[in-house]
Every structure is written in structure tokens, then in C-alpha cells.
């Protein structure tokens, strides 16, 4: 809501970074729960093989602000109307984001610290949009480990952006010659196509999205009276020996979505939820491949996968059907149109944005979340002088749908993260989801 945002300061010239389409969708979704102040945080957890010096992160952050102010920016909207954007003053006025330090002795304490980061909502109008926490896990000295936790307000950047930010900080920490001299792409290039063409694409996408949800959606969080705490469970797995063709089939998002759909169908059945079709947005990373690409802004478009719970009985057939859906959407140019349509959302007030997304008439936007962030960058093999052992991300999901499943890979580890809202699912539900996905992927539990 425009009037809920502070007025633009007129006392100092501000550098501005407009929010992208997917950033705005995240803002609009959160706004459905304005009174409950739900968290829109995401965390990126990097497990390292020894203690990380807090001052090294602080120094690298300080140097980063010499080039890019956005980690110290605040969210603004010009009064009385205008585009939401990140605003930062002159370099001298920028305060680096906080870097805190904790020590824990037991795994449960570590999990509590991580969940506290997810639940301690960032207010981007008043707080820096990101912060760091170092958690030292003090086991016996030979096995001491450290966890670097980057927490950010999700509309600032997507998980790949978070990884890119760490890469830039690592370069600055190592003081590599010309670390930022080549000026990596921090923000994406603007779309130079004529407004008329973009408008045509956007209308096409909106028309398409309106056809997606003929009936009301149901999610496990449908009957939640009040939003609960954000929880998450992360497990790492190793790939079993498998023939190459099987491995290739399971790497695709369609296979993974089919498996998660199967696990969710089981949850639906146990909870007696109506067997209505699932609608699941799949994020498509728009970055060109082979390069890190932009850091700030959620650089995503969406494809909307649809399937019935009964279809999950045959995962291979469902994966194939989902692939056909995706191919049809690409062939029709719907994914490109979606990215253009989302950019047009910036011309709408936040309150109106949900009208343009599928299934929002009942307040349900989709059935559950699912995403694959792919590989943690091999360039981040070491970070602040420590070897990276594992890394994964966990977002705070909204009370509805109340649950999401996220994949990524760090070296040979396959990570599975289930993020949920207390009340939408139980720990037992989550354990069953993890097991269904693990078995379907052919993964083995690591020690």
C-alpha cells in the first residue's frame, strides 16, 4: 500500500534501483498478510570447515559499498505514487549491514539460530535489506565448523543473487587484483523493446494466466487461522551409482516436481483435503548460462505447472506430461511473455497486483512451492579463508500455501530443504515428504 511506505527523502540525492517484476510479486504476496507481519526473509547457509573471522566479512562488505550501495539501501516509494525502489544515499552516509556472531554446542541450537534468522522479519523500509550471522559450532577442536548465514529480504534478490553476492565479497576479501575492476553485472540490463511490443506480450501472458485456475485452489495452509512460525528441515544426500540415463532423467525440474507432487498428494490424502488440481509456479532463471549474471533483483519468470493428485501415482508419466506442458509454454512464448507481464506490474499498486496472478480470487495463489537452485558455484570452493563443506538456501514460505520444497547441489552433496509454516504441516508430514523425494531420486543418506 503506497501510504504505508515512508515518503522519499528530498534532502539528499538518492541512488535508485527499481524493483523487478518478480520482486514485486514477492512484495504483493506478502502484502496479503500485512496485519500478521509475516517474514519475507530468505537465508543462505554456508557450512565451512573452520571458524570464520567476522571482521573479514565486515571489511569486504565495507569495500563492496564503495562500488554498490544496495546492501545498505532502504525500500522507498515516491509520494504520492511511483515505482518501488531501493534507495541509497552518498557513500559517506552508508552503514554496512550488520555481521553478528554466535556460538552453539548442539545441532538443535544451530537449527534454532537458523530458524530465528528466518523468523526475525526484515523491515526493508527501516532496516538494511540483508544481514550476516556467523555461527560457530564448537564440537571438539578438530571438528570445529562455522556456518555463514546470509539473511535477506527476498525481494532484494533471488538465491543465485545471494550466491553472487558471496562471490563478490570473496573476491574483495582475497584482495584479488582488479577484484571489482571488471565491474561484474550487479543489475540486469533494461528491456529495450518498444513499449507497444512489451504491452502486447504482457496482455497475452495475463490472458493466459487467467485461464489457469478454473476452480478454487487448496493448499495445506488453507485452514490456518493465524500464521505460525517459519520452520525448515534440511538434509543432504549422496547420489547412488546409477546408469547415466536415469541420472539425466532425475536432474530435470519436471522429475523433481513430479516427485514433490507425489509427496504432497500423500499429505493431501492424510489431511483429507479436496483432490483439486495442483497449481505450482516454477521459477525460470533468466540469467544467461555460464556466467554469474546479475546479483540484485529476482531475475526470474514463471511457468505454471498443473496436475491432478491422481496423476502422481505414475511419477515417470507425470514428469513426461509436465515436460510437455513446459515445452508448450516455451513454444507459445509464454515464459518470455510472463517475464514481460511481471515487469508491467510496476505500474500497478501492490494491492492490485494479486488480481493479475492466477487463483487469487480465493486468496490461494498456488498449491505449494518447488524450486531447484542447481549447483552452488564451484568458484566458492573457499570463502573467507575456509573451505566450503556445504551450502543451501531456505526461504520463508507464506502461510498459504504454507509449504515448499527446494533442491540444490553443493559439490557431490544433494540438498533437500522443506520449508513450512507451523500449523500447515507437522514434522512427521515433512519427514514423509523428504523420504518420498529421497527414494524417488535414488539418493542415499550421508553420514
Amino acid at each position, binding site marked *: 500500500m503506497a501510504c504505508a511506505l515512508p515518503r522519499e527523502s528530498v534532502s539528499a540525492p538518492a541512488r535508485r534501483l527499481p524493483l523487478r517484476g518478480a520482486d514485486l510479486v514477492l512484495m504483493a504476496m506478502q502484502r496479503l498478510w500485512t496485519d500478521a507481519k509475516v517474514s519475507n526473509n530468505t537465508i543462505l547457509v554456508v557450512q565451512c570447515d573452520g571458524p570464520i573471522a567476522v571482521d573479514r566479512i565486515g571489511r569486504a562488505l565495507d569495500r563492496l559499498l564503495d562500488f554498490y550501495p544496495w546492501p545498505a539501501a532502504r525500500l522507498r516509494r515516491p509520494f504520492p505514487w511511483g515505482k518501488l525502489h531501493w534507495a541509497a544515499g552518498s557513500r559517506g552516509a552508508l552503514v554496512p549491514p550488520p555481521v553478528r556472531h554466535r556460538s552453539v554446542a548442539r545441532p538443535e541450537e544451530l537449527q534454532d539460530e537458523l530458524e530465528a534468522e528466518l523468523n526475525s522479519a526484515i523491515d526493508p523500509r527501516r532496516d538494511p535489506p540483508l544481514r550476516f550471522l556467523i555461527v560457530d559450532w564448537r564440537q571438539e577442536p578438530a571438528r570445529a565448523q562455522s556456518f555463514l548465514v546470509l539473511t535477506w529480504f527476498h525481494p532484494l534478490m533471488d538465491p543465485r543473487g545471494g550466491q553472487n553476492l558471496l562471490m563478490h565479497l570473496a573476491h574483495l576479501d582475497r584482495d584479488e587484483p582488479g577484484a571489482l575492476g571488471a565491474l561484474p553485472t550487479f543489475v540486469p540490463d533494461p528491456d529495450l523493446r518498444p513499449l507497444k511490443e512489451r504491452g502486447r506480450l504482457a496482455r497475452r501472458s495475463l490472458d493466459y494466466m487467467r485461464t489457469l485456475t478454473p476452480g478454487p485452489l487448496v493448499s495445506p495452509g488453507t485452514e490456518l487461522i493465524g500464521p505460525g512460525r517459519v520452520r525448515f528441515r534440511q538434509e543432504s544426500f549422496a547420489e547412488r551409482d546409477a546408469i547415466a540415463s536415469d541420472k539425466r532423467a532425475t536432474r*530435470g525440474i519436471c522429475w523433481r516436481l513430479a516427485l514433490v507432487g507425489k509427496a504432497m498428494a500423500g499429505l493431501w490424502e492424510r489431511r483429507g483435503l479436496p483432490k483439486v488440481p495442483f497449481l505450482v509456479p516454477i521459477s525460470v532463471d533468466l540469467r544467461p*548460462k555460464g556466467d554469474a549474471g546479475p546479483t540484485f533483483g529476482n531475475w526470474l519468470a514463471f511457468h505454471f505447472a498443473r496436475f491432478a493428485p491422481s496423476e502422481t501415482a505414475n511419477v515417470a508419466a507425470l514428469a513426461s506430461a509436465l515436460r510437455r506442458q513446459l515445452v508448450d509454454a516455451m513454444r507459445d512464448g509464454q515464459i518470455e511473455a510472463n517475464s514481460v507481464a511481471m515487469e508491467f506490474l510496476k505500474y500497478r499498486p501492490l494491492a492490485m497486483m494479486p488480481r493479475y496472478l492466477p487463483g487469487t480470487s480465493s486468496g490461494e495463489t498456488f498449491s505449494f512451492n518447488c524450486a531447484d537452485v542447481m549447483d552452488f558455484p564451484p568458484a566458492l570452493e573457499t570463502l573467507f579463508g575456509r573451505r566450503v563443506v556445504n551450502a543451501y538456501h531456505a526461504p520463508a514460505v507464506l502461510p498459504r500455501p504454507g509449504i515448499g520444497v527446494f533442491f540444490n547441489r553443493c559439490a557431490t552433496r544433494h540438498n533437500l530443504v522443506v520449508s513450512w509454516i507451523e500449523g500447515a504441516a507437522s514434522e512427521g508430514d515433512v519427514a514423509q515428504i523428504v523420504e518420498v523425494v529421497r527414494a524417488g531420486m535414488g539418493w542415499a543418506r550421508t553420514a
Partner: protein
Amino acid sequence: MSRRTAAARLDRIDPDEVANALTTFINTSIMARGRPVRSNDDLETAGVDSMGLLKILLFIEAEFGFWIPDEDLVEENIRSPRALAGYICRYLRRRRSPS
């Protein structure tokens, strides 16, 4: 394209040319500037994800007139532009002379 032209094109089809066409498409439509792949490069290692692979399959459909069946989407057929080119040539020859 007339039937005769298509047949003549199939006679001339050369795996190197197909690999070059695929490599050019991948470098202009999928890869970042300054990060081109070569025809023998492993596409997955180069950063081509499942969405990128679908783009390549759509290109093959548009250029060579067929959709690669799911059961043929195995590592040996899709590892690199050259592997894809080899598969495309085998598929087209097989289709032309089914015996």
C-alpha cells in the same frame, strides 16, 4: 520445403554442420556473452540447465522437423552439441530408411 528439397537436404546432412548450427544457437540463445561453448563441450558442465535443454530441443524441432523422444534423452545423445548432432543424423537417416 518441398519433399524433393527435404530429401536432398537429408542426403547432404553432415554431423559437423549440424554440430556447428547447434553450437551457434546455444551460444546466441542460451550462453552468456564471453562464455561460448564448443561443439565437444559438456553442456551440463557449461551451465546449460533443464530449461536450456528444452530450448535446444525446440530448436531441433524447428530446424530438423522432429521432437527427440523422451526415451532418447540419455547422456550419450545429449551430452554435447556434437553428441546431439550425431543423434540427429542417425535419427534422420533411420527415419528415411526405416528398414
